[in-house]
C-alpha cells in the first residue's frame, strides 16, 4: 500500500517536473502564499472582499470569478495550491517513508527534532525516498 502510494507520488512528482509546473523542491507555505499574495492580492481584494484564506474560500472565489481574474494570478493559483498539497503530503508521509532510515541510522535518538536533525546530517547514507520527503517537507 505504502509502496504504491509512493509510486503514485513519484509519478506525480515526475510528471510535474516534466510539465515544468513546479520544481522538484516544494515551496514553503510562506513562499507559496507569498506568491499567492503577490500575484493574486489585487484580485483577492477586488473580487473576494471579506473572504479569508481558510476553508478554500480564496481558491474557490478566484475559480468562480475566473473570467475576471488576471492571467498572472490564474497561472500562479494552481502552482501555489499544488505546492501546498505536495508539501502537506510529504510532511504527512515522512514518518512512514523514513522509518527504516530512522531505525538504521538514527536509532537511540530521542525527540522528533533530533531524529530529523540526525537524518539531515546523514543525508548521504539515508535512502533516496527519505531524503526526497525531507526536502519536499521543507525541513532541510
Amino acid at each position, binding site marked *: 500500500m505504502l509502496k504504491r502510494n509512493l509510486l503514485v507520488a513519484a509519478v506525480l512528482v515526475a510528471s510535474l517536473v516534466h510539465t515544468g509546473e513546479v520544481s522538484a523542491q516544494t515551496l514553503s507555505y510562506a513562499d507559496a*502564499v507569498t506568491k499567492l499574495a503577490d500575484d493574486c492580492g489585487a484580485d483577492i481584494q477586488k473580487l473576494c472582499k471579506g473572504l479569508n484564506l481558510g476553508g478554500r474560500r480564496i481558491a474557490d472565489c478566484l475559480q468562480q470569478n475566473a473570467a475576471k481574474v488576471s492571467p498572472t494570478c490564474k497561472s500562479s493559483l494552481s502552482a501555489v495550491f499544488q505546492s501546498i498539497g505536495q508539501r502537506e503530503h510529504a510532511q504527512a508521509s515522512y514518518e512512514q517513508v523514513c522509518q527504516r532510515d530512522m531505525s538504521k541510522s538514527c536509532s537511540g535518538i530521542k525527540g522528533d*527534532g533530533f531524529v530529523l536533525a540526525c537524518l539531515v546530517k546523514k543525508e548521504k547514507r539515508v535512502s533516496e525516498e527519505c531524503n526526497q520527503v525531507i526536502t519536499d517537507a521543507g*525541513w532541510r
Partner: protein
Amino acid sequence: MTRMLSKTVVALAAGILLPGLAFAQEVSQERIVKGLGKLTAAAPAIDVEILRQEAISGGDKPMSALPNWKRIAKLPQMVLEINFENDSVAIQPKSYRTLGLLADALHHPNLWDYKFLVIGHSSATGDEKHNLELSEQRAVAIKEALSTTFAVDPQRLYAVGVGEHLPIEGTDANASNNRRVQLINLGVFTKKS
C-alpha cells in the same frame, strides 16, 4: 488605499512576556520554531472558557494579575504582526506570508508535538463589545486558516478573543500594536481518541 487598515499582531508565546517584546521584527520560520520550542517545564492544563471569562471580568488588568492567565503567561511566546481588513476577519494578502511562516513552524518536528492557544486582542478604541467579538472572530479565523489551508491539526489549536482586555504590558492600550493575536505554547499535544 488610504482608508485605515486595522492591524493585528500575532504574538507567539515563548518564554516570559519580556518588556522588550519586539513587534514586527523580521520573522522567519526558524525564529518562530526557536521562540516557541523552548518549553522547559510542563504546561498547566487550561480551560479556554475560564480564561475568556477571567479576561473579561479582569477589566484592564495585565495577564500577570489574573490567576489563570498568570499560569500560562510564562510559556514560550513571541510576537508577529498580521494585518486584517478594517472591521473584518479577512487577513490582508500582504500578511499571508506571516501566516505561512507560522504554518511552516507549526509543521516543524520541533513544534509538531505542541498545542497552541491563539488569543485575539484589540485596541481600546471603539465599542468594547464589538472589539471583543471581532478579536474572537479573528482568532478563530487564524485557527481556521491554519487548520484548513495549511493542514495544521485543529485539535492542536485553541482560539479565544479577549478584545481590549489584557493589554500588553508596557504598551499603550489605544495603540495599534495592541490589536494583536497572541499564540501561547500550551504544552505537549496528546491526540484525543
